């Protein structure tokens, strides 16, 4: 009579179960209320649970795809389950205490610093035609960044402030600053931002950032600032 290899078989089952149960298992709900779907997934795994990549916590993940040497390759620590319902401590250094977030790899580090330190972003490369509220095409990359920040923080509202230098009539500058702030808002709304999340205000030449005595100072004063409210 043959001996059944029970111990190796049980050991195999145990190992197989351990491997399949490792890793963070998440579930998602998506869709309209009453028509929603539920789905389950593990980061780094295909929907079928077949590992196409190593587990995210496995150091082998760093060798799964070719990467430049300069990029840190250590695996992320296991996520901690906080009482607030967040799955992980967050993308380190990218999410402020109240949930405002700008991913580091978007290359907006200076904007992220501005927002974190005083809830305000100063844009000097949003430019307009002379004495007009028409946006110049070179403003679009910056506007695109602003759009991405606003889109990815849908719980926040923003105030768009227009500022001018001291050239010209005070009243005209005041109107121009309002029109320019409105112009930025219009662009954002036309790109899918809910207008209720955006407010505008014009300050004309009343809040200079630099001296208006030099051309450089005046260039610094012609600006749009965005304040998170």
């Amino acid at each position: 009579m043959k001996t059944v290899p029970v111990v190796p078989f049980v050991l195999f089952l145990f190992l197989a179960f351990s491997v399949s149960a490792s890793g963070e298992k998440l579930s998602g709900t998506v869709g309209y209320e009453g028509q929603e779907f539920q789905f389950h997934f593990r980061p780094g795994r295909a929907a079928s649970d077949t590992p196409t990549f190593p587990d995210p916590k496995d150091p082998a993940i760093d060798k799964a795809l070719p990467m430049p040497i300069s990029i840190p390759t250590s695996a992320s620590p296991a996520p901690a389950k906080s009482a607030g319902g967040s799955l992980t401590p967050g993308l380190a250094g990218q999410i402020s205490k109240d949930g405002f977030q700008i991913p580091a790899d978007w290359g907006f580090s200076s904007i992220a610093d501005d927002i974190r330190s005083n809830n305000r972003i100063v844009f000097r490369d949003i430019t307009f035609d002379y004495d007009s509220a028409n946006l110049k095409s070179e403003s679009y990359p910056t506007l695109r960044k602003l759009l991405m920040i606003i889109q990815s923080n849908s719980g926040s509202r923003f105030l768009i402030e227009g500022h001018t230098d001291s050239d010209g009539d005070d009243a005209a500058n005041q109107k121009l600053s309002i029109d320019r702030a409105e112009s930025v808002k219009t662009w954002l709304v036309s790109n899918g931002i809910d207008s209720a999340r955006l407010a505008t205000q014009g300050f004309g030449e009343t809040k200079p950032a630099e001296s208006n005595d030099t051309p450089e100072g005046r260039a610094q004063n012609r600006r749009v600032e965005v304040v998170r409210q």
Partner: protein
Amino acid sequence: MTELVVVIGLIGILTGIFLYMYSRSRSVVVEDQQTAAYYQSMGLFLETFQSDVRMARRVTATQSGCFIQVMSKSGPLTIAYDVYDSGIRRTDQSGSRNFHFGQPLKSGAKMIFKITSEATE
């Protein structure tokens, strides 16, 4: 005279039935179209989401969606998903893509996108 009244009555009843059936079939067709569009959009969304998740190193739930950190061929990349009125927006460093789900079948129903942990560890 009586015959005329009966004929007019019958024509009225038949016309009413026909109009009712027509409007009912129209509303069913519209509902079917909405449902089909919804499931098609949902399929496209889930396909994209699962594709991102497959490469994910970390998934972070946010108030209105999630962030996914993936290791792409060009290096680390963060993808944001967040809900807007009638869909979900996917944003990465190259731009945004909207998954529009159309109108809900139930009037006033809100779009939901939540990620939760199943706590297997």
